[in-house]
């Protein structure tokens, strides 16, 4: 029986929240938006694969990138583990917890016993922090929930050893060394983060990443009636635009509100009026993403899904692509 005095807190996004939570536990006072911004967490990806029932539109970077980039840019050392044997994975986790070290775990969200049934979906790259163990399982801090949760050993094992894309393979990590951060290092890390994010958004020559992905996603929307078998299914996927942008760990506006908060924090650190102005523009951009996600949800609910309506949603998304191209071009030039 162990319980670590870990300050559980809700965060917007599981990966940035987990990293921020661990760093704060080890004494680094850093906010989630700073972690997200420094790690260039903002992105846009549009992919179609037979493994998912519908084209995937994500507005964040690849799972795992945030931890790796924070390690590189802030000099944090994370000790990472992967396992083939679930028994060894469980024993190792218990041993580290007994040393009162909180451990971040990659899991398939589907098996987390505390999630409501409507959120049960297989997603292998969810992150939680194990902060204690009891006779029948573990105490975990899942930043999507207001309180600590309990998880049986069997459920955690299933979550840690799920197969499929981004299979966790028992992956876990904990902070081994967290340095004190001076302003110079922080400024350098912020510049690296902004430079990488803006490069990814506007310059990366890959057709399904960045602004190109947003446009591709927009243009696909009017074709969705052909991809669905019923009006109900079409309505479901249109309403999922809202869930993906607002409620699936984004902090609202498809991560844009969190990025605006990062830019505002960065403006204070640099004393930069230009960054402050850009943070306001990013917040307004997030507001427009939210407006379009609300419009999509209403259309889905009212089954107002004719070609004109889908065309309107497409145009709203295209307008976001245009604005983000302008915004990230300014950010790119600012720290080139």
């Amino acid at each position, binding site marked *: 029986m162990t319980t670590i005095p870990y300050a559980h807190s809700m965060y917007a996004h599981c990966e940035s929240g987990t990293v921020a939570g661990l760093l704060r536990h080890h004494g680094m006072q850093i906010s989630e938006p700073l972690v997200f911004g420094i790690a260039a967490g903002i992105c846009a990806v549009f992919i179609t694969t037979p*493994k998912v029932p519908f084209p995937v539109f994500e507005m964040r970077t690849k799972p795992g990138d945030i931890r790796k980039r924070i390690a590189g840019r802030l000099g944090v050392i994370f000790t990472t583990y992967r396992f083939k044997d679930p028994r060894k994975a469980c024993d190792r986790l218990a041993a580290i917890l007994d040393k009162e070290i909180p451990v971040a775990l990659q899991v398939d969200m589907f098996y987390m016993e505390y999630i409501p049934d*409507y959120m049960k979906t297989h997603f292998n790259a969810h992150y939680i922090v194990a902060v204690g163990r009891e006779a029948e399982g573990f105490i975990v801090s899942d*930043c999507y929930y207001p309180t600590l949760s309990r998880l049986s050993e069997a459920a955690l094992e299933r979550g840690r050893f799920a197969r499929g894309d981004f299979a966790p393979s028992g992956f876990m990590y904990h902070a081994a060394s967290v340095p004190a951060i001076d302003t110079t290092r922080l400024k350098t890390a912020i510049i690296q983060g902004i430079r990488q994010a803006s490069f990814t958004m506007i310059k990366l020559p890959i057709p399904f990443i960045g602004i190109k992905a947003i446009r591709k996603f927009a243009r696909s929307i009017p074709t969705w009636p052909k991809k669905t078998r019923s009006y109900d299914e079409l309505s479901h996927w249109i309403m999922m635009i*809202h869930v993906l942008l607002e409620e699936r760990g984004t902090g609202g506006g498809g991560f844009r509100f969190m990025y605006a908060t990062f830019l505002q924090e960065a403006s204070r650190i640099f004393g930069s009026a230009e960054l402050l102005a850009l943070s306001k523009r990013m*917040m307004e951009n997030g507001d427009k993403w939210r407006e379009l996600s609300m419009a999509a949800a209403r259309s889905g*609910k009212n089954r107002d899904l004719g070609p004109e309506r889908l065309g309107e949603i497409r145009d709203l998304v295209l307008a976001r692509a245009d604005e983000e191209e302008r915004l990230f071009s300014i950010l790119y030039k600012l720290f080139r």
Partner: protein
Amino acid sequence: MKENDARVDYDLHQLLLYVEKEDGTYGPLQTGAFAAKNYLGDYREKHAHIINEGIEKMKKGEISPVGYYLEFFGMTVADLAVRAAVPVGKLKRHLTPVGFAGASLDALRRYAEVFDLPLANLFAVIVPKKEGTIVTAQRTCNPLFTIIEID
């Protein structure tokens, strides 16, 4: 987004949003989930259609329980095949009642694990007649044996 515009009164599903506070600074706000509060009923209605259609298809012998749960959880054949470590061709056969009858117990156990269900659920659907009846399936150490409790 202004703080007041973001507030949603819904305790059952909370989340964190970043909002503009009254003093112009941006920061976190814990609030209710808008979609969960306003659209969950619609989602449940759609899901109930999927369940009813699936049960009807199973009764008519058009799909197997594996096909039913594939629809139930909104998964694809490719994803289920990887997760259950069953070749796609074999899995496609298991989607039909005839193919399902030829599936090995081990393959069915792996499907059940992906769906996070006791193996017994691949052979029966329990439909309570009284509203409010709670049916709980308890796994045992024996992966082929389940205890079903009805309250």
